[in-house]
């Protein structure tokens, strides 16, 4: 038997023993235990170290608000840091380690930080570490040295470097009513909504439904509350329209009643089921939401309140009632309200000795006195705990008379031995989701807490969330909320379950702090003390946000669930203002921390969508090195054995200009532009004219943006009177489509034009080179491809190897070239036929590098030159700008800045030192390697030109054309490349176009 396990009771499965490891020691626990309850049962009291002072810490709570007991869960090499031990369900093989300590949890050298306490008070780092004004540590150097040390001391757990192999998934859900929280109020709401026929989702963050019913010890309809809860869950399960989600934290309340939740599907298992995710990220669109999220018990601020052994009263009760674990044998109680008395009774019943109940109030009700007697405790009203004894474990508490008006009177202090102190400072409703939804909380002087306002547009509250702390009333509110959320009228009378009445007063005394000597913590994890809050006040950081930011109060992993209100109260006192005038923080998602993996789910890595051309597999089988172009994959080179990239593309481009080459151009954007107004539409969106284009011909077109700068280019083919096929660059396909759709839908809705993306309908193979026509002629049937039948920019239809093809004679390479389009499903078939036909001629397949080389030789522009800043004239495409008609961009393209001299213009460069040029190198008149300056522009694309036998480049250079024939230098300090170049026309090769016109 574990030292602290009660002989009976609790909702754990005592027949199932589970083995786990914490900090290298093997322990056992039972099915149903959390890591915290199992370790407590084993007598462990030290769980972690605090952030700043590295103070020893135990476990304070039993839930998601735990600030102290953070651990790292290990799964093989994968580390999951900063998980509250209160939220980890134990399972066989669970391995966890403590954090933020060196060399061990018990002996942490950084605990020396505690000695610097007053020196390293809130905001100390803003006032020092600035370093000397002169010398080797001037500027930011001294700070950066200090920072290194500070960073090492700060931080909690350590993240690993091993990729996480776990599966994370997302799930979309729709429902009429989402109920958040499955305590008595939530269960009642879910049941009522389900019975009225609504589609219901019930989300519970714990492993079992029922909330407080699992540990309150109350009776409902004469049965233990937990039995009532499981009966209701059983009823809910029988409804076909209910989805029950346990281990599910609803963490975000987004616009449009969209809620985000994380379901921990596999964390409680040694290995997840096959194909099941570890976490499932739910996006729930709910017509209506019932918030039954309960309340958090607040700590009190007093010296030594962070010593291991100090625990929230409700948590201690939960450990006893739900887990069958006693947090101590001799337990003292400190409270400012009635609720702790029930904890005292529960702990006494479970076998602990309640050594004293110190109540901050001068007097308490008869009901409380009765409970104190029942617990066998000495009741000390008007008393406070003014200090705690013990090292890393509580051994006693110091009590003294106390009154809210005059504070502690030290004269009659007495010491009481205790190994556990349970504390209740009142309750804060869990209003986070309502606040995320935009609700402004209201302060209740009675409850000394922020309450949600009237129900919001999409939600309604029930139970402790509303500040309704009696179970009977919570259930009643739950039923009403469930009906309302399901759109049903309220009932005049309802039969409600019978709950034994709790004669306790929910209102606490307005006391948050007991002022006495010693460090009294407000924010446990971040080591923010009451004095820190007062220091912030002294220095003027008095607004809530300043308080938070200056002291880091509430910024820890528990997000201030327990510390927020006490911190505000201390500031309010310092300011002499009521608490609500100090303000409250607006809560933002997430309610509790959420794994990055769950949110990313399948959106990255191998599961990120990619796009493949119809010939993709052929490319791979034939040695292509693939290049990712946006989501597409395209062949970069088809490298031979031992070939470098440059050798490969030079060979490919050379062979193409020598005989023929073939390239996959399926990725080009293709848009069907159809309808009686298609030609008119194209005239408006292109800078040049398309209405004069005859059927069966193609034309190169240029599009500008509204601001007059170049947007995209491509050829458009007229396939019929009302039927055009537009091509765009690969990169801009989606943007062009949206641009055209916008104008058609919003600006020119009167035009009869339909646009359809047909990029995927067609496989495109461009075959070019002196022998291209012969190769094509040898395999095409049903059409001639000679100059007469297929002139430059002509289009014909035929068949290749039995598959229908459409051929347009156009050229990007500058060679006699043809784009052969076939149905995508025939793409590989046609491609292979072309390859076969090309074999006798020595035709090669070529990739993007060779394509780029040939386009540089021809001076064609692509995305590197059309970079969103260049005008048509900058690119020497002024001839494309029709003067006969307005078009998109025509009104703005002549603004002074766009026609100013000195703009960057497209030029060609030839390397004069026979060394390679690189994209991104700059151009200068005079080289200055030590202090590069005077950039005239930059290289956009560079290659070795097999046609010219030289290293050449395209560049955008200030006053470009005027510099033709002049010498300049590349200046590339990043790659240490400097050298002379000649500035020339961008038409390097066959400027008259003899080759392509044949």
């Amino acid at each position, binding site marked *: 038997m574990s030292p602290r396990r009660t002989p009976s009771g609790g909702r754990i499965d005592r027949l199932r023993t589970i083995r786990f490891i914490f900090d290298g020691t093997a322990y056992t626990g039972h099915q149903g235990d959390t890591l915290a309850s199992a370790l407590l049962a084993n007598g462990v009291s030290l769980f972690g170290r605090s952030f700043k002072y590295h103070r020893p810490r135990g476990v304070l709570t039993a839930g998601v608000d735990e600030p102290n007991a953070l651990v790292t869960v290990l799964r093989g090499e994968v580390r999951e840091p900063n998980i509250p031990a209160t939220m980890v369900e134990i399972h066989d093989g669970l391995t966890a380690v403590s954090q933020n300590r060196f060399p061990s949890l018990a002996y942490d050298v950084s605990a020396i930080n505690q000695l610097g306490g007053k020196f390293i008070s809130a905001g100390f780092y803003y006032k020092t570490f600035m370093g000397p004004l002169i010398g080797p540590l001037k500027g930011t150097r001294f700070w950066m040295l200090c920072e290194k040390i500070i960073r090492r001391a700060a931080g909690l757990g350590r993240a690993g470097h091993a990729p996480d192999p776990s599966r994370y998934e997302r799930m979309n859900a729709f429902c009429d009513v989402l109920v958040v929280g499955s305590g008595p109020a939530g269960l009642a709401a879910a049941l009522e909504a389900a019975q009225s026929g609504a589609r219901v989702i019930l989300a519970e963050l714990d492993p079992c439904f029922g909330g407080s019913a699992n540990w309150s010890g109350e009776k409902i309809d004469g049965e233990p509350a937990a039995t009532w809860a499981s009966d209701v869950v059983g009823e809910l399960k029988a409804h076909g329209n209910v989805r029950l989600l346990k281990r599910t934290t609803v963490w975000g309340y987004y616009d449009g009643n969209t809620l985000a939740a994380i379901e921990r599907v596999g964390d409680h298992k040694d290995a997840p089921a*096959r194909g099941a995710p570890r976490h499932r990220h739910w996006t729930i669109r709910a017509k209506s939401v019932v918030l039954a999220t309960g309340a958090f018990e607040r700590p009190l601020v007093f010296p030594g309140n962070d010593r291991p052994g100090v625990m929230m009263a409700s948590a201690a009760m939960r450990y006893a009632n739900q887990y069958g674990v006693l947090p101590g044998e001799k337990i003292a109680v400190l409270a400012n309200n009635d609720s702790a008395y029930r904890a005292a009774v529960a702990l006494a019943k479970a076998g602990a000795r309640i050594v004293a109940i110190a109540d901050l109030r001068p007097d308490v009700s008869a009901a409380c006195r009765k409970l104190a007697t029942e617990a066998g405790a000495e009741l000390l009203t008007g008393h406070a705990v003014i200090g705690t004894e013990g090292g890393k474990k509580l051994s006693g508490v110091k009590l003294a008379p106390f009154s809210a008006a005059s504070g502690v009177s030290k004269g009659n202090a007495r010491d009481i031995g205790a190994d556990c102190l349970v504390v209740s400072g009142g309750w804060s409703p869990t209003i986070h989701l309502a606040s995320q939804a935009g609700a402004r909380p209201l302060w209740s002087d009675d409850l000394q807490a922020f309450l949600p306002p009237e129900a919001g547009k999409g939600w309604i509250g029930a139970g402790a969330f509303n500040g309704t702390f009696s179970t009977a009333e919570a259930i009643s509110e739950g039923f009403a909320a469930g009906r309302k959320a399901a759109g049903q009228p309220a009932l005049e009378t309802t039969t409600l379950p019978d709950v034994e009445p709790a004669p306790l007063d929910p209102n606490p005394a307005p006391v948050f702090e007991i002022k006495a000597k010693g460090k009294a913590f407000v924010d446990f994890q971040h080591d923010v003390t009451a004095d820190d809050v007062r220091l912030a006040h002294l220095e003027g950081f008095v607004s809530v946000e300043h308080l938070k930011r200056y002291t880091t109060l509430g910024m820890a992993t528990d997000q201030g669930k327990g510390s927020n209100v006490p911190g505000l109260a201390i500031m309010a006192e310092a300011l002499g203002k009521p608490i609500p005038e100090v303000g409250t923080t607006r809560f933002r998602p997430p309610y509790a921390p959420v794994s990055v993996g769950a949110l990313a789910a399948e959106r990255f890595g191998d599961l990120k969508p990619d796009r493949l051309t*119809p010939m993709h597999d052929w490319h791979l089988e034939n040695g292509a090195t693939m290049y990712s172009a946006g989501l597409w994959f395209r062949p970069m080179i088809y490298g031979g054995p031992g070939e470098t990239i440059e050798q490969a593309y030079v060979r490919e481009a050379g062979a193409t200009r020598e005989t023929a080459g073939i390239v996959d151009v399926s990725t080009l954007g293709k848009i069907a532009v159809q309808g009686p107004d298609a030609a008119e539409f194209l005239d408006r969106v292109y800078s040049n004219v398309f209405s004069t284009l005859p059927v069966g011909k193609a034309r190169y077109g240029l599009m500008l943006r509204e601001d007059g700068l170049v947007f995209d280019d491509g050829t458009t083919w007229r396939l019929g009177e009302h039927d055009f096929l537009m091509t765009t660059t690969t990169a801009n396909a989606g943007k062009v489509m949206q641009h055209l759709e916008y104008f058609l839908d919003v600006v020119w809705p009167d035009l009869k034009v339909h646009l359809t993306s047909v990029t995927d309908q067609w496989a495109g193979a461009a075959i070019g080179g002196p022998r291209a026509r012969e190769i094509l002629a040898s395999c095409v049937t049903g059409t001639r491809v000679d100059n007469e039948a297929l002139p430059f920019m002509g289009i014909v239809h035929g068949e290749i190897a039995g598959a229908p093809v459409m051929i347009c004679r156009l050229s990007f390479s500058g060679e006699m070239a043809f784009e052969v389009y076939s*149905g995508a499903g025939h793409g590989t078939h046609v491609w292979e036929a072309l390859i076969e036909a090309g074999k006798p001629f020595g035709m090669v397949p070529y990739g993007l590098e060779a394509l780029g080389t040939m386009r540089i030789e021809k001076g064609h522009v692509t995305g590197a030159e059309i970079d969103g800043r260049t005008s048509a004239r900058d690119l020497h495409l002024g001839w494309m700008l029709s003067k006969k008609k307005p078009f998109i961009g025509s009104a703005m393209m002549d603004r002074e800045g766009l026609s100013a001299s000195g703009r960057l213009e497209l030029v060609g460069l030839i390397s004069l030192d026979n060394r390679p040029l690189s994209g991104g190198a700059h151009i200068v008149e005079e080289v200055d390697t030590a202090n590069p300056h005077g950039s005239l522009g930059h290289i956009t694309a560079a290659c070795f030109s097999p046609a010219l036998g030289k290293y050449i480049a395209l560049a955008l250079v200030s006053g470009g054309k005027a510099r033709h024939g002049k010498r300049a230098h590349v200046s590339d300090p990043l790659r240490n490349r400097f050298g002379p170049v000649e500035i020339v026309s961008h038409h390097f090769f066959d400027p008259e176009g003899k080759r392509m016109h044949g």
Partner: protein
Amino acid sequence: MVEQLSPLEPVFRPGSHGNFVDGVGVTLSEIAPGSIVQLAAWPGEEKKLMATIGSVTGLKLADGAGTGASSERYTAFGFAPGKFLVSDASEGLATAFAGKVTAAIGTITDLSHGRTAIRIGGPKSEWVLAKLFAVDFALAAFPQGSGISTTHHDVFTQIQRSGPDSFDLYVFRSFARSFWKMLCHASDEVGYEVR
């Protein structure tokens, strides 16, 4: 005629996969219709276009967004205002509409090669699809025969409900392989059969 090559070819593995010990949650298959055609009416001409679809395919389309119907051979559904996707088990559907959908009514766009059609059927179909699409797949919200347009990340998808627990998905061909992999991945949990 030359057969179309499926873009799924290398990743299409018939048989049972994933967690199928308790039975198969979904069945995945490629439909590979002979033709897929998009028909689009000019505003005000929608009724005429629907009548034309009826005359060619025999499918009766009711009024309203996303209306759809299917027969042994044909399927048709609306996916955007005035726009319909029609499929035919045989080739040549675009030709069948040529001349019938006149310039006054609207346009015909042959997408037989451009879209890949995938069917998911079985008791867990809605569960698996809900992982990929932010759409309510419940029968009441998505009745049999009707169609929608939606997106899984960058993958634009048109979906027709082809049965109480069966859906036909039309995706862009270039995305089809990666989408198929995603669909299999999402089906792992419930066990799936490819056929």
